[in-house]
């Protein structure tokens, strides 16, 4: 029998502690849209997306209403476009036509972002992959809702340093192409190592080639709920702390699992995974940084931060795994700067540097995320940061990613406003000693020794 205190607790989590389902993402395969003619290809893509995701937004709203749980984002991910455009696209401009089609399809279905304008080049780049990558700045500048990602390495293949070098340049060009908009294009572009096929979170979401024709993935959230639970055990030892995070993660994930199953059933699309991530938003009280500070740090960035984050990540996974039948995606805690008020504050008070953030990415869910850097940062330096982050992922057999925003015309001390869920960010200091000769070598860093598990 349902008990009034449990009902009260659930509704308090929703109303006061910002418990929500962060995203329902419908993955759609575009492999059956391929055609040698660009017009036919774009028409096929538009038709398939708008047909498959026709009811996504309305079903999302219906679930919100029936269970009283907010679902913040409804999104779509598609097969990496570099694989789809192979026959029809002979230059970067051809790919931009596909990007515009994706944008139109996103608007028609009412989703706020569509991911999958992507290339997977962890071992090598085809001519088509390179066309797509070179089209990214123009594609992101001329669309509103399209997100792009490029996978440049993996534990199995090593790191494609030619692609790393190219991505350094592409990030710069994207910043330039969207300079009138605070270089916002870079907020829609992620460079991955070990990218998962079933990630529901933007900007890195795409529908991997290992996936079914269409699938529903759900990303749960709730940093506020975890923080509030930890307030109750202030001063207690680590055992109690861990137990508290674990129990809370279980409850939060159960809601994600419920929403995933409902959405899957109502849409007639199979359920894929629940991504057990704590994803912050710029709203006060919805911050991963605040959880770490609640554990006893005066500021995120203080010694102990990496340990605190490691603990949080592990307990979230331990609590969540039993609550869902399929867990996947990135699963862990996100540590973006601009999207997390606690992180922004830590950067502003000088407690959190890019180097500390890099150390934190060894134990978190993804990587260097939504960090504004001076517009004058060189492409080689950006490539160097990407290479460092990819190396962490490659060696540690985990997903890592970089989403840096070199804001044109801004320098350390400035603040950049991105708006909405993207928040704002102080421009951070980057180590300016050159890594140009290192990046210019080109070629590939071989896979690490522990990748040979056959």
């Amino acid at each position: 029998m349902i008990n009034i205190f449990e009902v009260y607790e659930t509704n308090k989590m929703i109303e006061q502690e910002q418990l929500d389902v962060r995203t329902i993402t419908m993955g759609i395969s575009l492999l059956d849209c391929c055609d040698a003619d660009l017009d036919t290809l774009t028409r096929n893509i538009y038709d398939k997306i708008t047909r498959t995701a026709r009811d996504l937004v309305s079903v999302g709203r219906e679930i919100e209403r029936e269970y009283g749980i907010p679902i913040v984002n409804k999104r779509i991910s598609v097969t990496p476009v570099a694989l789809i455009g192979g026959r029809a696209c002979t230059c970067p401009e051809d790919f931009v036509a596909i990007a515009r089609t994706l944008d139109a399809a996103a608007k028609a279905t009412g989703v706020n972002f569509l991911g999958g304008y992507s290339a997977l080049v962890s071992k090598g780049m085809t001519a088509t992959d390179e066309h797509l990558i070179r089209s990214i700045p123009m594609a992101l500048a001329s669309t509103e809702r399209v997100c792009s990602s490029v996978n440049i390495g993996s534990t199995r293949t090593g790191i494609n340093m030619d692609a790393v070098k190219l991505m350094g340049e592409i990030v710069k060009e994207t910043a330039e192409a969207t300079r009138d908009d605070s270089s916002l294009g870079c907020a829609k572009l992620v460079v991955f190592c070990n990218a998962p096929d079933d990630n529901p979170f933007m900007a890195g979401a795409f529908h991997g080639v290992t996936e079914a024709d269409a699938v529903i993935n759900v990303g749960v959230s709730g940093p506020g709920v975890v923080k509030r639970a930890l307030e109750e055990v202030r001063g207690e030892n680590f055992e109690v702390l861990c137990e508290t995070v674990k129990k809370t993660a279980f409850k939060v994930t159960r809601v994600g699992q419920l929403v995933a199953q409902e959405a899957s059933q109502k849409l007639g699309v199979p359920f894929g995974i629940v991504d057990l991530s704590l994803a912050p938003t710029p709203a006060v009280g919805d911050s991963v940084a605040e959880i770490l500070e609640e554990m006893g740090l005066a500021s995120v960035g203080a010694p102990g931060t990496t340990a605190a984050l490691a603990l949080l990540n592990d307990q979230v996974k331990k609590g969540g795994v039993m609550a869902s039948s399929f867990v996947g995606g990135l699963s862990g805690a996100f540590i973006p700067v601009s999207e997390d008020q606690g992180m922004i504050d830590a950067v502003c008070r000088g407690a959190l540097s890019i180097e500390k953030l890099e150390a934190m990415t060894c134990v978190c869910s993804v990587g260097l995320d939504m960090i504004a850097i001076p517009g004058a940062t060189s492409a080689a330096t950006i490539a160097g940061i990407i290479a460092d982050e990819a190396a962490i992922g490659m060696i540690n057999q985990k997903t890592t990613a970089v989403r840096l925003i070199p804001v044109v015309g801004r320098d350390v001390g400035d603040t950049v406003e991105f708006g909405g869920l993207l928040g704002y960010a102080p421009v951070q200091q980057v180590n300016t000693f050159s890594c140009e000769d290192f990046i210019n070598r080109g070629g590939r860093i071989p896979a690490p020794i522990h990748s040979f598990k056959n």
Partner: protein
Amino acid sequence: MSAPIKKTIITVVGKDTVGIIAKVCTYLADNDVNVEDISQTIIQGFFNMMMIVDTSRSSKPFGEMAGDLERIGEEMGLKIRCQHEDIFTRMHRI
């Protein structure tokens, strides 16, 4: 095959006033919704009421009923929510 009927949980939170239960129950009776259980308590100074109702014969679709009750709540300075029971059972039961 249709899905099994879900019970709906109605919660009323706010300052205590005369006639809250009467008003909510009248609305439910008028729309063929059967009340199966009512419990109430004061939590952190707030009046909290929970009803478990069966909407299988309800004359109104779920969304409309939820909207109507929300408005009735606003008129009395209360927050009234309707939610399917699953969110509570899933979260608190293994």
